[in-house]
C-alpha cells in the first residue's frame, strides 16, 4: 500500500487564515454601491384569506423604489421536492390566502432600513381569518380546517395529508405472531431550529441582463436552478457567487422567498438589493426542523433476536410540502439500516398544519427515529434480562448484507463499533450501578448506548459533481469546484485530495469554489455526500491531470509511464531518480508539443451510476446509495434527583465513516453533533402558540453555551478496509452522529434514575415527574405487599 502524504492527515483549514483575520466574505459582507434595502411583509395570521392588498401608500413614500406582491411575479411555483407525484406547491409570495404566521406577502426596496420598515407599515391588507390547526393529529381528522387538499394519491381517511410513504419487507403480522415478546411505544419530539449564527442574507444585482446573487446557502447550483425557474430566466442569466457561509445545518437549502424578492426587486429597480433577515424573523417565520410522532411496535424472540417491527411516523409538516415528504421517506431508511429485522412495515404521513414550512435539519429525522428504536430496544432488553450491548450485537448488520431497498452495506463496521464502544466506556461495569445501589447525595450517574447509520450522497438535483484541475506553468494547481464550504471544510478536504494525487504541496493548491459561472456543477453541502461525491470528482480530475503529466514526461524521457513516479512536483524514473523532469518542464513540453495543451484535468462523480433516478419517496422503490456509515455512541449523564436537572458529562462516538480524509475535521463534525444533540436532549424548543413563536431569540431559545460542553471522544473503526484496492474511500460523518447520541442520552437518563422518557426535551420537570411516579409506584407496591389479601 502506498504511503499517503496529504490524505488521512489533519491539515489546518484552507479557509482558516481568512476566517481568523476577518477577511472571509459572507453574503452580508459584500457591499455594492447604491444598494437598496429590501424587507418582507409577513402574515400576522396563521390562516386567513387575503381580501385586498393596497400598496399605493407604500409606493408613494419617498425613498421607496419598488413594492412587489404576487401580482408582480410570474406565478411560477417551487418546492423542496419537484417530482411528478409531488409537483412544486409554493408561490414565492402568498396568493389569495396565507397559511402560516410569517408567510411572505409583499416586499419593498427602499433607500434605507427605516424607510423600508415604514413602507411595510403603509401596505394595507384586509384579511378574513380562517380557522387554523396546529397539531398534526387534529389536522388529520376529517372536518379539520383544510389547509390544502390531501394528496390525490392518498387513499386513507385523513385530511391535510401532504404526502405519505408506505413500504414493507417480509410479513410483519406473521413476525409478531412468531415473537416471544412484543411491545408498543409512542415517542414525540419538540420543534427545534438550526441555530446557524449567520442570518439568512441575500444581495442581488441585476446588471446587463444578468442576475448576480450572493446568498447564504448550502448549494449554489440548487439556488440557481430555483431562482432561474421562478424568475423565468435561463440558467446562464443567473450567477450565484461564492461566499463563505456561517452555518446552515439544513436550514439554507431550497429557495427562500427573500432570495426571490431581492432578485425581483433588483430587476425592477436596476439597483443592488440586500435583504437580511432579523433573528426574530428567522425564529418566527423561517423554516425549522420536523417534529415527528413515532409509533413503534416491535417483536423479539426470547434471546433478543428482532423478528418484526412496525413504525408509523406522523410529521407536523407545516403549511406547505417543504421537506415534509422527504423526512417521512428518510425515516424508513433510518429504521431499516442498522439492524437485521426480517419483517418490517412502515407508514409515514406528512400532515399540513398552520405552522411555518419545514426544512431538513442535520440528521433529517434520524435523531427522532433512532431515539424511538433505541429507547424501546433497551426496554425490551430489560424485560428479557439481556444487557444493552448483547441485544445490539445480536441484531447488528454485518458487511455485505442486502438492505430492504436493495442496497448493500459493503464494509459495515457496526459490530466493531458496538464492541469497541462497550469496551472503551466500560459500559457493562457502569450500567445499572446507581440504580442498584444508589449513592448518597442527590447526583445519580447513568450510562446509555445508541446505534445509528446514515447514508450519503443519495441522488437529488443536481445529482453529481464535476471538478476541474488546471495546472499552472510552475506546477501548482487551480481547482475549480462547485463545492460550498459551510464550515465542514470542503475546501481543505478537496485540496488534500488534489495535493495527494498530484504530489504537490497544500500551498500549491488554490481553490476557486461555489460560483455557478466559473465552477462545474456540484451537489452541494447537503444529503451528506460532499466528501464522497465531490471528493471523488476531485480525485478523478487530479488523476486525469497526473496521467497527462506522466504521458508527456514519458514521451520526453523515452520511457513508459509505469517506470515513472511523481514526487514533490518532479517526475522521475523509478529506478534512476537522476532521470527527472520538473512539472514546470513537463508542462512547458506539453504546451510545445501538444498544440498548447496546458494540462487540465477533469473529473466527475455521482452515486449509483447504474440507477437513473432517486428512489420513490412514496413507495421507497429504487436503490439509494453505495455509501452507508455506521456508528455507536455512548452517553454518560448526571442527574440531580432533587432538582431534576440532567446534563451530558461525556460522549463517546465510535464510527465507521470510511477513510477520514482529515481526522481533525472529522472530530470537529463529531463534537458539533454532540453539542447539537445535547441541545436537542435538554435545552432547545421553539415554543409556539396558535402559530406564533413565543421565544424568537437566543435568550429564550436556549442553545448550548460553553457551560454545556461535554467531553467528546471518538474512535474510528475498520479504517484500513477503506484503502484496500483503492487509495481511500470516504463515507458519511456530518449528520448521522446527532442520532445515536440522543438515544444514548435517553437511555443514560433511564439508567441514572429509572425514569423512561418518551418525549424530548428531557426537562427537569419531566424527570422530576417521572421520579415522583416511581416513588408512588414503589409505595403502592409496598402497601399491596403488606396489606392482607382478601379472599
Amino acid at each position, binding site marked *: 500500500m502506498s504511503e499517503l502524504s496529504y490524505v488521512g492527515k489533519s491539515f489546518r483549514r484552507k479557509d482558516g487564515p481568512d476566517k481568523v483575520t476577518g477577511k472571509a466574505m459572507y453574503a452580508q459582507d459584500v457591499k455594492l454601491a447604491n444598494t437598496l434595502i429590501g424587507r418582507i411583509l409577513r402574515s400576522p395570521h396563521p390562516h386567513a384569506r387575503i381580501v385586498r392588498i393596497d400598496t399605493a401608500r407604500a409606493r408613494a413614500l419617498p425613498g421607496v423604489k419598488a413594492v412587489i406582491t404576487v401580482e408582480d411575479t410570474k406565478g411560477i411555483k417551487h418546492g423542496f421536492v419537484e417530482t411528478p407525484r409531488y409537483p412544486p406547491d409554493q408561490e414565492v409570495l402568498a396568493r389569495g390566502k396565507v397559511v402560516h404566521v410569517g408567510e411572505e406577502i409583499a416586499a419593498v426596496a427602499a433607500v434605507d432600513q427605516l424607510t423600508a420598515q415604514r413602507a411595510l407599515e403603509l401596505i394595507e391588507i384586509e384579511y378574513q381569518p380562517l380557522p387554523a390547526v396546529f397539531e398534526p393529529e387534529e389536522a388529520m381528522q376529517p372536518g379539520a380546517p383544510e389547509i390544502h387538499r390531501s394528496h390525490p394519491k392518498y387513499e386513507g381517511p385523513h385530511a391535510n395529508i401532504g404526502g405519505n410513504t408506505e413500504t414493507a419487507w417480509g410479513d410483519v403480522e406473521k413476525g409478531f405472531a412468531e415473537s416471544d415478546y412484543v411491545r408498543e411505544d409512542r415517542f414525540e419530539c419538540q420543534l427545534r431550529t438550526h441555530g446557524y449564527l449567520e442570518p439568512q442574507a441575500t444581495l442581488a444585482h441585476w446588471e446587463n441582463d444578468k442576475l448576480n446573487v450572493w446568498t447564504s446557502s448550502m448549494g449554489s447550483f440548487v439556488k440557481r436552478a430555483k431562482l432561474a425557474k421562478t424568475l423565468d430566466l435561463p440558467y446562464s442569466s443567473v450567477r450565484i457567487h461564492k461566499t463563505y457561509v*456561517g452555518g446552515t445545518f439544513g436550514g439554507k437549502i431550497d429557495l427562500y422567498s427573500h432570495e426571490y424578492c431581492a432578485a425581483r426587486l433588483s430587476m425592477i429597480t436596476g439597483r443592488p438589493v440586500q435583504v437580511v433577515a432579523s433573528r426574530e424573523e428567522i425564529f418566527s417565520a423561517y423554516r425549522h426542523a420536523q417534529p415527528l410522532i413515532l409509533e413503534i411496535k416491535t417483536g423479539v424472540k426470547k434471546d433478543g433476536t428482532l423478528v418484526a417491527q412496525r413504525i408509523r411516523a406522523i410529521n407536523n409538516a407545516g403549511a406547505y410540502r417543504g421537506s415534509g415528504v422527504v423526512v417521512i421517506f428518510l425515516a424508513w431508511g433510518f429504521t431499516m439500516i442498522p439492524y437485521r429485522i426480517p419483517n418490517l412495515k412502515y407508514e409515514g404521513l406528512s400532515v399540513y398544519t398552520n405552522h411555518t414550512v419545514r426544512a431538513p435539519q442535520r440528521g433529517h429525522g434520524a435523531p427522532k427515529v433512532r431515539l424511538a428504536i433505541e429507547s424501546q430496544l433497551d426496554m425490551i432488553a430489560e424485560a428479557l434480562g439481556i444487557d444493552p450491548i448483547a441485544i445490539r450485537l445480536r441484531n447488528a448488520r454485518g458487511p455485505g448484507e442486502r438492505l430492504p431497498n436493495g442496497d448493500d452495506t459493503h464494509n459495515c463496521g457496526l459490530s466493531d463499533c458496538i464492541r469497541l464502544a462497550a469496551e472503551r466506556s466500560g459500559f457493562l461495569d457502569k450500567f445499572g450501578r446507581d440504580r442498584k445501589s444508589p449513592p448518597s447525595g442527590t447526583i445519580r450517574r447513568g450510562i446509555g448506548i445508541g446505534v445509528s447509520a446514515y447514508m450519503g450522497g443519495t441522488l437529488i438535483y443536481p445529482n453529481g459533481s464535476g471538478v476541474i484541475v488546471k495546472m499552472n506553468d510552475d506546477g501548482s494547481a487551480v481547482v475549480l469546484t462547485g463545492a460550498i464550504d459551510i464550515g465542514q471544510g470542503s475546501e481543505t478536504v478537496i485540496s488534500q485530495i488534489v495535493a495527494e494525487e498530484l504530489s504537490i504541496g497544500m500551498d500549491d493548491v488554490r481553490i476557486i469554489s461555489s460560483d455557478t459561472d466559473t465552477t462545474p456543477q456540484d451537489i452541494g453541502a447537503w444529503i451528506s455526500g460532499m466528501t464522497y461525491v465531490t471528493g471523488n470528482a476531485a480525485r478523478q480530475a487530479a488523476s486525469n491531470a497526473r496521467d497527462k503529466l506522466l504521458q508527456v514526461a514519458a514521451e520526453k524521457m523515452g520511457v513508459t509511464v509505469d517506470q515513472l513516479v511523481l514526487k514533490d512536483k518532479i517526475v522521475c524514473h523509478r529506478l534512476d531518480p537522476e532521470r527527472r523532469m520538473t512539472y514546470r518542464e513537463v508542462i512547458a513540453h506539453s504546451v510545445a508539443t501538444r498544440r498548447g495543451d496546458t494540462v487540465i484535468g477533469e473529473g466527475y462523480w455521482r452515486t449509483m451510476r447504474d440507477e437513473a433516478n432517486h428512489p420513490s419517496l412514496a413507495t421507497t422503490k429504487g436503490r439509494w446509495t453505495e455509501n452507508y456509515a455506521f456508528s455507536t455512541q455512548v452517553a454518560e449523564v448526571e442527574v440531580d434527583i432533587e432538582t431534576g436537572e440532567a446534563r451530558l458529562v461525556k460522549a463517546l462516538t465510535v464510527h465507521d465513516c470510511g477513510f477520514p480524509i482529515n481526522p481533525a475535521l472529522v472530530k470537529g463534525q463529531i463534537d458539533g453533533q454532540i*453539542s447539537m444533540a445535547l441541545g436537542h436532549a435538554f435545552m432547545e424548543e421553539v415554543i409556539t402558540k396558535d402559530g406564533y413563536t413565543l421565544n424568537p431569540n437566543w435568550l429564550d431559545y436556549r442553545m448550548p453555551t460553553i457551560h454545556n460542553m461535554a467531553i467528546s471522544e471518538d474512535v474510528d473503526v475498520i479504517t484500513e478496509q477503506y484503502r484496500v484496492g483503492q487509495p481511500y474511500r470516504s463515507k458519511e460523518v456530518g449528520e448521522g452522529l446527532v442520532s445515536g447520541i440522543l438515544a444514548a442520552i435517553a437511555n443514560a437518563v433511564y439508567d441514572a434514575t429509572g425514569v423512561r422518557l418518551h418525549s424530548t426535551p428531557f426537562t427537569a420537570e419531566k424527570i422530576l415527574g417521572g421520579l415522583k411516579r416511581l416513588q408512588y409506584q414503589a409505595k403502592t407496591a409496598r402497601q399491596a405487599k403488606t396489606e392482607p389479601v382478601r379472599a
Partner: protein
Amino acid sequence: MLEANESTPVTAKRSQSQLISLCVNGEWREVAVKPRLTLVEVIRDSIGLTGTKASCESGACGACTVLLEDRPILACLTLAIECDGKRVQTVEGLAEGGKLSAIQDAFLDQGAVQCGFCTPGMLMSATALLRDCPKPSREEINKALEGNLCRCTGYNAIVDAVLQASGQGVEPVMK
C-alpha cells in the same frame, strides 16, 4: 404623522448626523454617524470592516464582540456616538505585520474554526481574557466566553485553543 407626499425619505428628516472620532485598530478616523446607529453598524457599514459579525443584534450571541478601550463589549448594543474619542479593536487588528497572534494561530491549530461566523467575536473575547489573565483556568475560560455562542464546534476545540495560546500544554492537532 408622516405624509406620503413629503419629498425626502423618512430617515433623512429624522436625525442629523454627528461627527465622531474613533481609533480603530490603531488608526484614528472621523465618521459621520446618526445617533441611533450601533457600533457594529458603523464598523461594518461606514468604516467597511466587515470582519465583525452581526448575528442576533440583541446581545444574545457575542458575534459582534469588539474591544472598546481593551474591554470586550457587544457592538450591537453599543451606540456609536458613545464611543466618540475611544479606541476600538476588531478582528482585523489582531494580526500584527501579517503575523497571526497566538490565539489566532491556536484557533487554526485546534480546529476551533468551522463556519467561522462566531470566530471574530470569540477571538476578541479570548484576546481580552488572555491580556488580563495569561494562564486562565478552564473555569476562567468558560466565564470569559460564556456570552459567545458557537453552533459548529461544541466549544471543546475553542477551549483547547485558549489553553494552547496560553502555553498550558495543549499541543496543536492540525498542522
